[in-house]
Structure formats: C-alpha cells, structure tokens
C-alpha cells in the first residue's frame, strides 16, 4: 500500500511528485538488478551433469538431485578453471609453440621464473652421481616426519638467509624448530588461515593482492578477506590509516578481524616494505591484537638494489611481540623449482607451530624431493652463485621489459622484487571501468596473444592495471612482446 498511495498521488496530481517519481525509478532499478543477477549466474555446468544423473532421486523425491547431495563447498563456490598456478592450462598449451617468433600465446599470467632453471639443471647434472650413491631406501620410502626432514630443516636457515639478504653480513638466523615444511606456499597459507581464524572471521589484505589468496585463505576455511585498497597515488604502499579504517568498519559490522596478510615483496606490484613500514604494521597489530602473516615467497627475488627486510630479521634486531608474526616462504619458488612444491611456515608462536605440524599430515613434501633439496642446499657455493646470478637475470629481464613498455609509452610501477611487473594501461582502455579493463585483457589475448592478469582479479580498485609476469619469458621473447603490445595499442587507439 505504501507504494501505491504515492503513485496515486502522482496520478491524481496531489503532491508527492518527488516520491512518485523516485519510487517507479527505484522499482525499475530493482527490476534491472534482478534480471541482471539472474542472467549473470548461469547454472554451473556441474549442476546440469549432476541433475541428469539424479533421476533415481527425483522419482523418489527423497534427496532430489545431486545438488543437495554434493557439499555446498563444491557448488556454492564454483571457481573458474583454476588458480594462478594453473591458469596456464590453456595458455601454456600454445605457449610452447611461441618460442622464437612463433604465433602461440605468450604466457605472462603465471608467477614463475624461467630465467634460472638452467643453473639448477647444470648443478643436478654435475652432482647427479653423488646423489644417486647416497640413495637410501629407508630414508626415503618409509614414514617420515610430516613436517619435514630434520636434515632439510637444519640446512634451510642458512640457505634462506642467503636468499633473504643480498648482503651476506646481514644474515638472518632461523631457528629450525620453528620451521614447518608444507607442500607449496598455497597450503602454508591455508594452514595458517585454518590455525588463526574461524569460519566467518576475516583477514585484512592490502589490495591489489595475488588472486591466489582467494582460494588459499577463503575457500575451504570459510574465512573472509577484507581488501584494503592501496592507490597508485601513494605507489600502492600499504597505509596504516586504510588498514585502521577497514578494521573499524569490520568491527562495526560485527566481523572479527584476526590478522593482516601482507606480501613482501608484494605480488603483483613488486614493492618492498620498508623497515619503518614493517614496524608500523607491528604496532598496528599489537594495538588491535591481531596476527601478521608475512608472505615472503619472493624474498630471494628482490633485485631493485633496495634493502629487503624480512620479518625474521626484524624480530631479531628489535624487541617486538613475535608471537603474532608468521612468515610464509616458498623454497621451490626461489630455486626455480616450482614443481617441487616445497613451502614453509616460519612462526614464532609455538602453538601455531604445533598446530601446523599436525596439519602437515594433509600436505607434506615428498621425501625424495626433500633429499634432493638437502643435497642442493648443502652446496653453499652453488647456492651463493645461484642467488647472485638469478638476481642479475631478473634485474636484466625487468629492465628489458620496462624498456619495451617505455617505447610504447606505457607506464609501469618500478618493480623491486618478484616475477611481475604492474603495468598501467589505463591509457588504452575505452571506458575507465572494470568493463573497459576486461575488454582490454580480452584484446591482449585475442589480438596480442599475450595472457596477463587484469588488475580487477587482483582486487585493484583502479581500473586499467595489469600484471605482466616477465620472468616467464625468455630473452628472445622480448622483441615479440614488443610487436604484439604495439599491435594491441594501435588497435586501441584506432578504436578510440
């Protein structure tokens, strides 16, 4: 009735003009919204398949269809065909053909470093026989501690310290008993999410962030992510004010925030967080009584000449509340061996270490792989040389890529770590919105044959940014990428 009365008012000319026009508009808007909603959520394919097979149940009407029989998890969150580790499925099939001027798709959407694997390959070749002789079945096939072999844990600190600081004298010392090895950084992050938050709780994550977090932090745990937007105006640096605001807003909503997840070096931007920035974060966490998860999977790949400061180092030199700091590191990533799936949690909180150790039963690292890593990391000379060369290669690749962009007049953030470059292509998008950005991403793939990650997937609030993973290219690919990007940029300019 409340709706109809003002409508009558309009018809009968008795005032209510404002209400009378607002309400139909609102109704129309809601209708549109409703239609849009209904159209944008097409029944997932899996449902159809399941529905067809559910004939028996339909007849009985007991548990009609599999939609109900299969857990909500698989149907409520039907995620696309994969995460950052696997978007290559389609891309990489053709990427192989790209090579030297081929016309396959260039895969720049996957965080991986293909620049230095030859170094590791050479090492394996030289030391192969050594390793094979030391092969001892009972040390490999039998049940091993699920949180990692002690031999590996003992040797990791030294190696990781090497990865984490360019200058040797500033070495970080790690305590092997605080290390928990996991199969890859994904499971390390998920494990921490399971340990630190209950379903419905939330983590603050400065955005843009690695889209993989949506899977690792949220999916199976039921934990939420509150993106804390960072802006290009302050170089996408984490701002404590924004964190504070997001925290208070969540608190008002009645949502419990259990921690902050930061990536250092940041992915996708490639920023490093300064020592002061880290200390501010620690203060913030102490103020709010929350945890800090520091994702340092690219620690060994900082090359900007600036100082990379790990939380591990910070806790050593400054007297801070360590119990709330948890570091995630990916050993296989920095060694150019992503397939080896060796990540680790380094936590100062003994309860977290204990819980995570129990959780590693679900995702521990294969023993033969650990053995190879033990012998590889024991070769300190090789590791030192590898770290140096790898940084050098990354530095060169990023310089080459930036040069390509500059020639095309495209701006990008200065990348100081990681395998990616955060590129501002807002000059090429037709409408300054997410839609425009996705259109450009589409063009990059269809016209330019380059697969990249659009910023909206990284939850960036400013449209037009793209993540280009330059480390996945070989040197020969740079001229190719130049030609292709130029093609795209010309098409865009013609269109507009």
């Amino acid at each position, binding site marked *: 009735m409340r709706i109809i009365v003002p409508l009558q008012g309009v018809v009968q000319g008795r005032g209510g003009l404002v209400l009378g026009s607002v309400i139909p508009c609102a109704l129309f808007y809601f209708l549109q919204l409703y239609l849009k909603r209904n159209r944008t959520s097409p029944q997932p394919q899996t449902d159809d398949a399941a529905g067809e097979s559910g004939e028996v149940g339909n007849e009985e009407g007991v548990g009609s269809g599999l939609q109900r029989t299969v857990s909500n998890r698989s149907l409520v969150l039907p995620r696309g065909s994969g995460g950052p580790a696997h978007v290559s499925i389609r891309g990489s099939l053709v990427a192989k053909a790209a090579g030297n001027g081929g016309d396959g798709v260039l895969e720049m959407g996957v965080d991986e470093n293909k620049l230095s694997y030859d170094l590791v*390959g050479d090492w394996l070749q030289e030391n192969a026989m050594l390793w094979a002789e030391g092969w001892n079945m009972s040390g490999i096939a039998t049940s091993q501690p699920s949180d990692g072999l002690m031999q590996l844990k003992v040797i990791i600190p030294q190696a990781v310290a090497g990865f984490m600081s360019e200058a040797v004298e500033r070495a970080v010392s790690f305590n092997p008993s605080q290390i928990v090895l996991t199969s890859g950084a994904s499971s390390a992050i998920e494990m921490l999410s399971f340990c630190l938050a209950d379903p419905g709780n939330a983590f603050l994550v400065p955005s843009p962030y690695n889209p993989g977090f949506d899977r690792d932090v949220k999916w199976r745990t039921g934990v939420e992510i509150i993106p804390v937007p960072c802006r290009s105006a302050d170089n996408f640096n984490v701002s404590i004010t924004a964190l504070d605001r997001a925290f208070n807003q969540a608190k008002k909503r009645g949502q419990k925030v259990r921690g902050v997840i930061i990536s250092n070096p940041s992915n996708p931007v490639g920023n490093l967080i300064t020592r002061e920035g880290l200390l501010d974060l620690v203060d913030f966490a102490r103020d709010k009584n929350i945890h800090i998860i520091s994702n340092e999977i690219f620690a060994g790949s900082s090359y900007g000449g600036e100082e990379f400061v790990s939380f591990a180092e910070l806790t050593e030199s400054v007297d801070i509340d360590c119990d709330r700091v948890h570091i995630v590191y990916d050993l296989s990533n920095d060694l150019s061996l992503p397939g080896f799936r060796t990540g680790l949690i380094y936590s100062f909180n003994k309860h977290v270490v204990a819980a995570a150790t129990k959780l590693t039963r679900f995702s521990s690292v*294969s*023993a033969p792989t650990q053995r190879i890593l033990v012998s590889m990391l024991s070769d300190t000379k090789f590791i030192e040389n590898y770290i140096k060369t790898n940084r050098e290669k990354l530095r060169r690749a990023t310089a080459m890529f930036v040069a390509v962009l500059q020639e095309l007049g495209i701006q990008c953030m200065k990348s100081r770590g990681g395998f990616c470059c955060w590129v501002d292509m807002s000059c090429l998008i037709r409408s300054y919105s997410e839609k425009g950005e996705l259109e450009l991403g589409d063009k990059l793939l269809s016209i330019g044959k380059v697969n990249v990650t659009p910023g909206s997937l990284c939850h960036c609030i400013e449209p037009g940014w793209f993540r280009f993973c330059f480390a996945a290219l070989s040197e020969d690919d740079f001229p190719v990428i130049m030609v292709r990007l130029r093609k795209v940029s010309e098409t865009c300019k013609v269109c507009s």
Partner: protein
Amino acid sequence: MEDLNSKHHTFHGLRGWHSAGDGGGGAGGTMLTKSSRRKRADSRNAHRGGNIEQLHHQHRKMSFLDCETNHLLLSKIATSSRHGENSHYFDGWKAYDSDPYHPTENPNGVIQMGLAENQLCFELIKEWIMENPEASICTSEGVNDFRDVAIFQDYHGFSRFRNAIAKFMGRVRGDCVMFDPDRIVMSGGATGANETIMFCLADPGDAFLIPSPYYPGFDRDLGWRTGVQLIPVSCDSSNNFKITRDCLEAALKHAQKSNFNVKGLIMANPSNPLGTVMDRDTLVDTVAFVSERRIHLVCDEIYAATTFSSPAFVSVAEVVESSDRLKCNRDLIHIVYSLSKDMGLPGFRVGVIYSYNDAVVNTARRMSSFGLVSTQTQHMLAAMLSDDRFVDRFLVEVPKRLANRHQIFTEGIAKLGISCLKSNAGLFVWMDFRHLLEEPTLKGELSLWKLIIDDVKINVSPGSSFHCSEPGWFRVCFANMDDETMEVALRQIEAFVSEESDKENVVEKKRSWRRNLRLSLKSPRYEESILSTYVLP
C-alpha cells in the same frame, strides 16, 4: 551478459573466482553452515546424552573465549583436540618413540608393531631405481627432462603420471576394471585424499557413517578441518565383523532420527584393522544401499594390493562397472587410493581420488593444489609404474612375502593358544586377547595393553582406539620389520603368555600382586613425551 562472461572466461580462467569473491555467496554459505553446525553439535550432545560431553563442549567454548582474551588468538581448529592425538593409539607410539627397539643398541626396547607399513619389498624398488637412474631426474641421463619436471605445476599432474597410476590401479585389481586417467585426482597421501573427498561431499556438521572398528586416523583425516561428524556402525565378532545391510540401515535410521544430515558411508576395503576383504555380495548390497538412500559411498582401497590369499579382492569399481544404472548411481561412488601401502612408499605422499562424479572430480582437482605431489616424484613414479616387467614382478612378490610373514606370525601365536580374526589382506592381524582380559571392559583392555607395552615391550594398538565395540581385540602389524625382529617379538609374546597362564593357575594370590605392579607401571612418560610427527599409516 552471458556472452560477455564467456569471453572473460576465455582470456582468463580466474573469472569465476572474482564473481564468487564479490558475490558474497561464500559468506552466506559459510554463515549458514556455521549455524547449522552449532545446532548439530548441540544435538549431538543431546543425542549422546552424556553430561560429560556437554561439559566438554562448554569447556571448549570457554577455552575458546579464553584464547581470545589471552594472546593465543588461535582458531578452534588449532586449539581443539579433534586431531585425535590424545587417543591410546598414539600413546603406544609415544612409548615406542621414547624407547625404540634396536637389535644391538637397545635390545630391550619397545618393538613397533603399531605401524602399518610394508617394508618387505623395499629392495625391489631400490633395485629398480638403481637400474633406472634417469627416472629420478638427478642423473646425467635424467637431466634432459629437468626443465619440464621443475617448471611444471599444473594441478592435473603429468598425464603420463595419471596414465601410469590408472593402469596400476587396474593391474592391482586384476585387470578386471579399467580406470579413466582423467578421473584421477592426486593429493597428499591417502590422508589428504580422504580429507579432500570430505571437503567435496559434506559441510561442517554433516555426518558420515563408518563401520567400526576403523582406522583411528580417520577421526583426524575426515573430521578435523572439515567439521564432518563420524557415526560408527558397530560390527562385532558374532559375524566376523562383517558389514550387513541391516546394520547399515539401522545406523542410518538412528542417525537421521538424531537429526544428523547423513551425507554418506565411508569404508575401508580391505579393512584396516581387520585385514579382511569384502565379498562381492556385500559390496553389491552396499552399493544398492547407498543408491537407494541417496548417500555417497567412499571406498578406501589403499590396501588393495596387499591381498595375499583368497578370497580375491573385489573393488567397488568392478561392482560399478558390472551393475546397471538403476541399481547403482555412479555419481555417488568415490574411491580413495594411495601408493603408501601397496607400494610401501609412504614417504612419497601419493594419494589418489577416483570419483565417478564429474562435479567431485572438478572440485577435488582444484583442491589438490593444497597437496600436490612433487613433480620430481610424479616423474619417477610415472616411469616406475609404466615398467610392466617391474609391476608384474612386484605384484607377485608382495602377496607372496606378506603371506609368508602372515603365516609365520599367525602360526607362532596359534601355538600359544592365541587366535586372530581370519584375514587375507593388509599388513596386520586383528588379534584376539579376550581370554586374557581381567574383566571384559574398556578398562580391562587398557590395563592389558599397558602390560603388553611395558612388559612384553611391543607396541600394539588396542581395539578401543579403533572404536571397536568389543574389548579385547588388538591390531598387530607384521610387515614393518625384518625376520629377526619378528622372531624376537614372537619370543616375547610367548614369554608373556606363559607367564600369564602360570598366573592363572595360582589365581588369587598373584592377582593382588599384579594389581600392585600395574599401579607402579603408570609411568609418566606417556603424558610427557611429545609425540613426534610421523605420517601415520
């Protein structure tokens, strides 16, 4: 709009996430399931009716509040005890860890017979690796494959790895069934596989039926992080612990009456701890049961290749292939497999989910990124399992050696008048110590068990840790040691049993003495020593 959507899909596979993340669908879903979980937890308490349970529940709530006020700030998962490591099964492990047997260095130590591990065929695998050094990629022959192996991180796994596993699974099942490599999802060991399938099939608070006695690790694997409740379906010695349609129906009815949302039935075939295989009729019956009741069936077949004598092992896959669609709804059948037991390679952490349901395959595959098998290991196993000559020999040798060991052990204890459940698979026997119990209760079983650990110096697992409804049964593993250790163990059992029967003869006097002894045996080391973190069998 749909058109636009599909376009986005083509340029980036991540599209789906984004909408899921923004749509808030996840939030709604989890909130809903959370509240339903609370309701179920409460109803569970009501169902069991125990005050202690309720108190425990409240206590947990309290301790959680405490956590929030103090600096722990951990989740319920991290602070709860659902990981099950406080069970007696693990106590025995602690005893072993603090005083392990060694033939020369510690001949009086505890012999580990609680570890279901197949160490009888190690040298076969070692031999193969020595003959095929290129498979481990770490030799000059193998380094050519290095690039592919090191860089590859697709969650589908190498296709040659999946093909090899599918073929091997078929071989293990006597080539009666074919497995589709595209349905193979890998995960971190059977532990991870079991958890993943639970994540796919059930929400927190949902329930799964499980025939008891069952493997104690299931409490952790299936329920800890997923929040799934396990409802034991009691089987007992009256019909040799067989699963019957009637007891399944009764359990389901009872569970539904108590307001549990029963999502499925999970069972191990061959059974751990019984070492028996299910006959075809029972399997057909069970499949019919789940199809009629519209619940899932998860078959844990990780001991398939350890079947060493007749009756032959029948996989649920055979039943699925042979029965018609009306009687068997394929979408409800899922198989968990692993190489840890059959190949004796627990350190390799290779588990497999094989589901006939496309939705489950897809979801599980996405989840497998939390427990991917290292590509180096995939590469090596792909080569090993594709080697027909090796697999043929291996599948002949394993049953032969197990049968041999099984015979030595069962005959050894039969001489002492100890019987065990007739079994033909697995790496263990289900030993009947009922006649040695002082009283046929849980207390009686545990005191006998402590005696066995402390006096006989053997770590066996008491039936109560397997949720067995009858006291007096023990699981004894026989494949994780060499022949000499086996002899020592048998000798020690012999000494113990003869001492026990001596005591029986001089009844009254001794009994009081033994009670005193038992008191003094309450050593603090069970409580104190920290459980080392083994990947449990």
